[in-house]
């Protein structure tokens, strides 16, 4: 167990932790990951890759939540609780999404997103 009683260590952690730029670094990183996910979601033609892009976007949101939880709410870490819930919902979404993909593949015999156009005017 970490002994956090020493004042020197406390002040060291304070000075380490309250570097004001670190939060911005994490937020910029998650913004970049989210934009890559959006690009993949729109431009992919393989349906499995679309599901992977959705996972990328969910991970970007998780990274955002964790960064806020650490830098803005370090004592009552509600962001970590939200991240665990998001991971749970993402697991359910991946299972159902891949099952839907298998059903579509059985019906249409392709995974090309451009040919899933039964509902297109």
């Amino acid at each position, binding site marked *: 167990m970490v002994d956090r009683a020493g004042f020197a260590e406390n002040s060291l952690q304070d000075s*380490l932790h309250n570097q004001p730029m670190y939060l911005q670094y994490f937020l910029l990183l998650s913004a970049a990951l989210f934009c890559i996910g959006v*690009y993949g979601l729109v431009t992919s033609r393989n349906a499995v890759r679309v599901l992977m892009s959705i996972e990328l976007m969910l991970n970007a949101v998780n990274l955002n939540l964790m960064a806020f939880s650490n830098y803005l709410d370090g004592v009552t870490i509600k962001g970590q609780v939200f991240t665990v819930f998001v991971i749970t919902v993402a697991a359910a979404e991946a299972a159902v999404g891949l099952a839907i993909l298998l059903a579509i593949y059985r019906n249409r015999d392709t995974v090309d997103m451009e040919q899933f156009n039964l509902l297109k005017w």
Partner: protein
Amino acid sequence: MNLAEGVQLVSFIVLSVTMIVAALGVVLSANIVYSAFLLGGVFISISGLYLLLNASFVAAAQLLIYVGAINVLILFAIMLVNKGEAFKPLKYLWLRQLVTAFVCAGLFVLLSTMVVTTPWDLSLAVPIGDEAIYVIAQHFFTDYLLPFELASVLLLMALIGAIVLARREFFADAPPAPETKEDLLLPERPRELVGSTKE
């Protein structure tokens, strides 16, 4: 995590570069199997970033659930639907990709401006490090008890729904005729021969 500042910074740079390169590989790679393995790299890098953010429990959960479950599930789905088909070329595909790239770059610039210009109200308290798992457990069983129980119901619904969606539509009652037995026809996908792999 009690790491020196330089170690933290170097780890952050290495993990973020790995994550961005692997994410670009997921989106841009031509082979879908490479994309799936690079997605595992993205998940592992994000788990390392969680360790940098004093959250060892969520990092372990990320490794177990994403790399161990979701990535393997995606690989199995690729194995089930991988026909090696060549997609038909589309008109204006390059225009679509160009417009999407511009929109995503604009979104990134917008988000970056917001992140840099906002004065964040940083907390002055020392973050709890390894005791985070106790706090998470207290949250789960006191003020987040209802979402925690609903998550179990959601997982049960997803389990049953995935099985109902992905099972076979019909089963062959009688064994197939002997002349079709040499071709090894699958009963649910009669169009594709099993032995016919493209070289």
